[in-house]
């Protein structure tokens, strides 16, 4: 964790996201209006969450192969970071829904599915804390996170697209669905995903280092 160039990259990309995200010309679409800029802030939270969950699953699998607790640290802290992003994503979505659809929560398939997805990850934290043996905790939570991830992807990406959903980009709705064709929005959207994800990874790795230091200190005290 000595390399720090990606932290500078994260700062630059986030500065670019906020300045350009608010200032560039965006397509003038009905209903969405200026809120199309939520693409750079709300949608990127979910993308960041997803990338961090992939990292968590990879380290979970690595833990199952090696049995090393250092891998478990990465897995749990990246899941924590992903949950933070998910909570921010759902809260920003609720604010947007209040002003666009008139209610904080509608029983839209996309919304309910993402709520279920988040609850699954809350259950992950509860499961972890209910086990006292560190190796057992690491192993069970690694297995759980693999299964949770496998359910999470269809829940938030596939199922809402199979039914009617009001959420932009789902159920044949225009809105963000159209951004795929628009290079102007892409110019900020992709850097924004990378920027937010790097920030999440940064916070997660700092917490991983705290965990490892804590464990090393404990080991030292026990062996004294």
């Amino acid at each position: 964790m000595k390399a720090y160039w990606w932290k500078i990259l994260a700062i630059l990309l986030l500065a670019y996201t906020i300045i350009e995200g608010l200032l560039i010309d965006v397509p003038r679409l009905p209903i969405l209006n200026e809120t199309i800029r939520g693409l750079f802030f709300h949608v990127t939270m979910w993308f960041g969450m997803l990338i961090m969950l992939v990292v968590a699953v990879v380290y979970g699998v690595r833990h199952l192969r090696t049995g090393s607790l250092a891998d478990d640290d990465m897995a749990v802290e990246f899941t924590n970071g992903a949950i933070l992003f998910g909570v921010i994503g759902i809260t920003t979505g609720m604010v947007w829904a209040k002003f666009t659809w008139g209610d904080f929560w509608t029983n839209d398939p996309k919304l309910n599915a993402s709520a279920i997805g988040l609850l699954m990850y809350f259950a992950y934290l509860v499961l972890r804390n209910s086990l006292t043996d560190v190796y057992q905790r690491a192993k069970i939570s690694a297995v759980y996170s693999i299964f949770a991830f496998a359910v999470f992807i269809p829940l938030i990406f596939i199922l809402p697209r199979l039914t009617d959903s009001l959420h932009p980009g789902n159920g044949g709705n225009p809105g963000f669905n159209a951004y795929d064709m628009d290079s102007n929005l892409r110019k900020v959207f992709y850097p924004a995903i990378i920027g937010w994800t790097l920030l999440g990874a940064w916070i997660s790795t700092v917490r991983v280092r705290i965990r490892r230091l804590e464990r090393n200190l404990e080991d030292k005290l026990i062996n004294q």
Partner: protein
Amino acid sequence: MKKFIIIFLFFISFFVKAQDKIGITEEDYQNSGVEMADKMRSEGKIYVLVSIIGIVLGGILVYVIQTDRKISGLEKKYND
């Protein structure tokens, strides 16, 4: 052989489309029938907003950097 199949599947996935897209045209950028925050932009107030959010982000980043340096210092102390 396995690698070849993976690369092949990867390439055909580029041409797969899940949904029909509705394209955005130049007209969508000129469409003044849709209300946007044009007044705020013309008054330059948008720059106030940009600086406010910029400061918030800056504050969070400074906090993260401080935490990062603190843990680096502790790690160093531990290794000595």
